[in-house]
């Protein structure tokens, strides 16, 4: 019996957090960041794959010495991956974590009530 009420209390606490304005804001911030960035890096990566298949003259163009466009394009995939990982980390630390920990505390309070 006591376990049953425990579950109910948890469900009520989750519902309370879900209704909170902060949670809707957290969700909005998260989605507004990850959706455009995911689309961007997928398009960027698939463009690279497609150029390897269908733009070989462009890719074979030499830029400096023996270094050609293909190699630079490939290395830029590394640069963009490192950069997005860094930018996301900073964004999450600053814009997501404070809201999340506040809501986490709210959940704990609600569950005790």
């Amino acid at each position: 019996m006591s376990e049953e009420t425990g579950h109910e209390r948890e469900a009520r606490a989750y519902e309370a957090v879900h209704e909170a304005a902060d949670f809707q804001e957290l969700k909005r911030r998260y989605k507004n960041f990850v959706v455009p960035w995911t689309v961007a890096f997928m398009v960027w990566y698939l463009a690279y794959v497609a150029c390897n298949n269908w733009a070989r003259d462009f890719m074979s163009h030499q830029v400096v010495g023996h270094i050609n466009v293909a190699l630079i394009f490939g290395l830029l995939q590394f640069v963009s991956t490192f950069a997005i990982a860094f930018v996301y980390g900073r964004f999450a630390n600053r814009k997501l974590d404070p809201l999340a920990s506040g809501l986490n505390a709210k959940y704990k309070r609600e569950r005790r009530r």
Partner: protein
Amino acid sequence: MTTLLIPLADAEPGNQALTISLFTAVVAVTLYITWWASRQNKTTADYYAGGRSFSGAQNGLAVAGDYMSAASFLGISGQIALYGYDGFLYSIGFLVAWLVALLLVAELLRNSGRFTMADQLAFRMKQRPVRTAAASSTIVVSIFYLLAQMVGAGSLVGLLLGVKSEGLKAGVIVLVGALMIIYVTIGGMKGTTWVQIVKAVLLMTGTLLITFLVLLKFDFNPSKLLGAAAANSGKGEAFLQPGLLYGKDLTGQIDFLSLGLALVLGTAGLPHILIRFYTVPDSRSARRSVQWAIGLIGSFYLMTLALGFGAAALLDTGKDSAVAGSKGNTASVLLAEMVGGGPDSLGGAILLALIAAVAFATILAVVAGLTLTSASSFAHDLYVNVLRSEDSAKGKVTEKNEIRVARFAAIGIGAVAIGLAIPAQKLNIAFLVALAFAVAASANLPALLFNLFWRRFNTSGAVWSIYGGLTSAVVLVIFSPVVSGKPTSMITGADFAWFPLSNPGIVSIPLGFLLGVVGTYLGRDKTSTARYNELSVRALTGAGAEGPAKH
């Protein structure tokens, strides 16, 4: 244990002794770690998730150690040595893929799951059907990957030690299998994680050293290195341009696109990677883990460029060369010998032995991670929550009992892997790694993403997408040229291939997503939707998430 490796015929005795003593050192260190970790395994959270007490940096190293298989260490640099620029393409998909894990999966999974991939789905779905489905795809993906690694281990260690006899290669497979069973049964997640951390440090250090020595030979001028590689390869500038390996005709080009999709979408659905996110205390450390992993894996792949082009520039890679004979796998090792001072020098012998030992450690860490993943899923998903879930007469399964089942499962899975890997030695099964990525992207990723981001998603949607993605990827590969119809196929002398591509991703990934949608609209369970709010609160805020174990 070293007795298996001693009777060697044709290699020089000095090098042999050095290599074997380094191999023995790797084995001794990892066994010590396992013994040490075993004393701290008390609860299921210890056994499956290392007590959730690893830091972001530690787990990042372990993730990198789990991900960078011998195939990527020796394989990618070997492919670059033989095919130039095209050999580099695999690593880019492997790296970019981590952004999917970072942005969409790692933190949310950490907050909403416990021990396995299935936990996260079972949060709001009917336990038995989704756990059975998720456990099936977990075990299939892990066994494919494991088989590829173990067969690779047999030929690799054989190559590194100069062993030619089939019996001794089988002995190596048995040895690797026995070690991985010991790590997993005794050390659990804590032992396995430390083995992976040690391996990642060894691999990064070894690769950095060889990279430095290669670049030193070319005055740290990349263009000079590339020019020498192009000239020595005999292929000229074409060696630095796309087209030597992939996309020779339209089918090949679509095949390459298909491979690219599976690589970039597969990583975030690989069960042995997913369960690594449970070993940290919170979502913030899960994020740090992936950032560390991206930094380490990215730097490593950049170094394989120097290794691969260095091998092309400094070694003989012609048709009858040792490098070409091993399909590129010996390129890094022979390169180490060369930059150390050449075949007859002490420096060369030391570096060769060192890199061979690093490769051996690499194999051990990856196979241990895979065995643990399948054993966890068997014990936690199938045994506890499916087979015994309604067995109330016998009472609930105790934690102690669950760990015992996981240990037996690890022994069983290890034995099956050894049993399959020995006869598979003569087959060309390198495609199994790409297939594991395709299944992960087609079966696991759609279910994970729909579960997190689509309220309407339900049990039948999950079951449809997992079985649909799994079956379509496997069936398409069975009827593709990698299994039959070509001289390079796994089965020669038969032709039942009707699917033209070697990589099923371009068909099976959209199909996995589509079936998830179809299944959802055909299903009728209401609870999945009702608990979506709970899941999204928990995933985004960490409210009610599993905390670190307290000892």
